[in-house]
């Protein structure tokens, strides 16, 4: 399985996964993933439920460390350095590689503080107000909240909360943003807004998004990775990875074709 993550572009790699295996305790949830993520592109992870998309995504910024028993084998190169080397501080990894979660999770604080807190703890020096405004603008939320920055972030609608979380992530100016089903709780309009936002953000950031929405993957992403659980050992594996257009119109693998044409089951 060493050829499943064949690079298909000449762009630079943001992350290079080499034979990555993810474990929860003794259970191997994901096996043998090889994948090179293109810089300043949107990569979508698709696949049936339980195939390990979230697991792989979490391993990219060491959020798996936070799960008791969570463990990753293999190498994930970031700027030529393995994220899992003992001398790498996971705190710094997460500071460079931000994350937006499936369920919006703003802090129970004001909208302003939601964004400022991350900046503060990461030692941001400068005009905090500017940073907050700029981040909210980038997340296409500014117009809606500019008059109630001191109100609780929990008072926003689900879609607004998710954009607030995106604003919060980009305020720390990471290099990569990981999004785990960011639109699963949103209506189609909010979903489109987030997609527009991603297209905007990808000019400056590398984005990885997990989605169950085929149209979304097809519409919004540049590259797509398809995962599937190997029935023999219940471990997820990367089946096919390539440019989105090509993967959707001309999948190389029969299993991919079954999945995207809806014959999967």
């Amino acid at each position, binding site marked *: 399985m060493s050829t499943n993550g064949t690079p298909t572009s000449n762009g630079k790699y943001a992350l290079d996964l080499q034979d990555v295996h993810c474990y929860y305790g003794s259970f191997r949830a994901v096996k043998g993933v090889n994948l090179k993520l293109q810089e300043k592109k949107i990569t979508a992870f698709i696949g049936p439920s339980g195939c390990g998309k979230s697991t792989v995504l979490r391993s990219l910024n060491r959020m798996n460390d936070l799960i008791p028993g969570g463990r990753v084998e293999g190498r994930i190169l970031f700027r030529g350095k393995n994220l899992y080397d003992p001398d790498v501080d996971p*705190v710094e990894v*997460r500071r460079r590689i931000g994350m937006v979660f499936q369920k919006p*999770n*703003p802090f*129970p604080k004001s909208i302003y503080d939601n964004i400022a807190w*991350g900046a503060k*703890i990461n030692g941001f020096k400068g005009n905090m107000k500017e940073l907050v405004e700029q981040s909210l603008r980038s997340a296409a939320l500014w117009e809606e909240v500019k008059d109630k920055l001191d109100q609780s972030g929990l008072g926003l609608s689900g879609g607004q909360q998710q954009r607030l979380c995106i604003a919060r992530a980009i305020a*720390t100016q990471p290099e990569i943003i990981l999004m785990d089903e960011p639109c699963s709780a949103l209506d189609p309009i909010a979903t489109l807004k987030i997609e527009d936002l991603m297209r905007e953000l990808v000019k400056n950031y590398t984005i990885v998004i997990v989605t169950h929405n085929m149209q979304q993957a097809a519409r919004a992403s540049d590259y797509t990775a398809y995962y599937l659980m190997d029935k023999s050992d219940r471990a997820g594996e990367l089946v096919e990875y390539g440019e989105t257009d090509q993967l959707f119109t001309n999948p190389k693998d029969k299993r991919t074709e079954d999945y995207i044409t809806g014959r999967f089951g």
Partner: protein
Amino acid sequence: MSQETQPSDIGQYPEGDNLKHFIENRKRGGLVWRVSFQIATILAILALIALLYNIINGAFGYVAIQNKVDPNSLVLAMEENQMLSSSGTVSSEDDNELVDGIEGNPNAIGFFGYAYYNDNRDKLKAISVDGQAPSRETAESGDYPLARPLFIYSAADVMRENPAIGAFVDYYLTNVNSVIEEVGYFPISDDLLNEATTAWSAAAGEQADALQAYTANPAEVSDHDISISGSSTVYPLTRQLAIQFRRAGFQGGLDLQQTGTTAGFRAFCEDMTTGISNASRPINRAEIEACESNKRTPVEFRVGTDALAVVVSSENTFLENVTKDELRQIFTSAETWSEVNPDWPNEPIERFIPGADSGTLDFFAETVFDRQLEALTEPELIEILKANLSTGLLRRFDAEAPLVERSQPELVDLVLERVVEQQVVQSWELTESIFDRAEIEETVAAIPQGELQWRSWLTPAFLVTPQSSTPELAGIRTALFGTLWVIAITILVALPVGVGAAIYLEEYAIMVANPTLRRINAIIQTNINNLAGVPSIIYGILGLAIFVRAIEPITSGMLFGVSDPTTANGRTIISASLTLALLILPLIIINAQEAIRAVPNSLRQAGMGLGATRWQTIWSHVLPSAIPGILTGNILAMSRAIGETAPLVVIGASTFITVDPTGPFSKFTVLPIQIYQWTSRPQAEFRNIAAAAIIVLLILLLTLNASAVLLRNRYSRRLS
């Protein structure tokens, strides 16, 4: 790949009426819980009522106050003294001197026994008092204010056992009217004399005839002795009759004393050293009860009436009638007649009064000066203080606050406290006070100098006075300070340690990969859960061993040089606080753990996903979200600690201490110990102040809880 499943032959659900019944039945299940809830609520309310009832019942109610010294007698002594020491007053034991002084002097006034006036009618004029002219009728009926009845008392048993006494009383009644005017009193009417004779016959019963035979021939009872004491007013009359009885042939012992009416009743009723008691007032309830408890039912015999005449010279033209108040002024403070009444001449008053040793002066003062202690002026109160307190004590009070600058109520209080020495002799609970009012009043009436008073044992003074061995003077200041110190330090120690431990267990221990460490953490967790159920006395023993004994140099404060090494020991506030901190630590940890566990994981992911360290995430997001829960646990723990008694008794909290604690190394006592100690005292009044102290403890608890709840609500609001 889904297959349509038909609602078919494999089974069916209830429909129609069946469905309705089915749902009804399921709802009924909830009824059980509702009933349980209602029972629990009722029980809780009952418990609360019982608690409040018991406490409030003890903290309020009637008390019987007894005075060591009768305040009226103080007032009287003061007034008499004023009367005697006024300028222009001539006082003499010899009535002739008084008559001589008044005779022919229009500005003179005086008083003495009515009989003596009667002998000098030609020279003197008796004036009316409150519109009543002195006469036998007005005196006997009591209309004339300066009159009083004269009695002798004996008892049926006494008269039967000692025929000499029975015969003497009969002799007395038969002959009194023939000698009484000679002695100087009004004879009583035939009606009253008949009543007395009838009372004698009833008391003598079957022996009446025999006794009457002895009356005719007293020599036959000479093998018995007669002992009499009591009123000095009745004394001369009894003496006269005793002399005649002896002349008639009585040869036995005859002991006649003049001790005053009250002492006379004491000798008759309590000590039973006399068989007859002379009295110038009716016997009171308490004295009757004292008699009856000794199986002596007193029998009263009215023998005459005493009256004083207020006299001026025959030449006096302006005085016909005076009021009692005018009399008071005339004989004490006034210097001229016009001072008392503008219609009277502006001439100096010249007073002629019987000497201090005579019963006449006392009687006059008692009748005319019927003022209450509370009505006296400041100088008069100071006079009382000066007359009754040692100079040393006076100087001390004067140094605290000059007496002349004190207000009248303050002086009254001082007199009551120091001279009258009021004491609570009996107390009643609130319910008794409300429902058994009549009974209580009777009981109090039976207490000599007893007075009924409504009392709240919970007063501002109760809060700020230290402990005392007299319940009325005891307060909870020391215990209150002790409790506040102990609780403050307990929380200061237990809260950070407890929350810290909870954070470790919830946030860090689960991330530990090393299996040995994991097992140790699990054991610690189990241990904490079990410790929460350990009896508090065990913590007391632990505290005694560790804090009081093992690290005594630290807990006594000697290591820091803050305590006197000769008296210091480890039984200090800090030892108590550390012991209580240990006691409530599991409680705080478990509650804090629960609160921390309830914080959603997404919040931690959000924080750490932004590149925050674990601690930053905990501090900024987890803890603030957990604070309401942590505070709840803290309230429970604090309430527990405030109410704890046993461990503090074990580590040796002081039970009697009057010095406020000044810091962590002070000796101390706390409210529950104080309450416990008071409830175990025999005097009922200690239970009253214990109830009051419990109210204080409850209020303290509720205040602390309420402030914690407020704090918690403020936090919760900020979070949402």
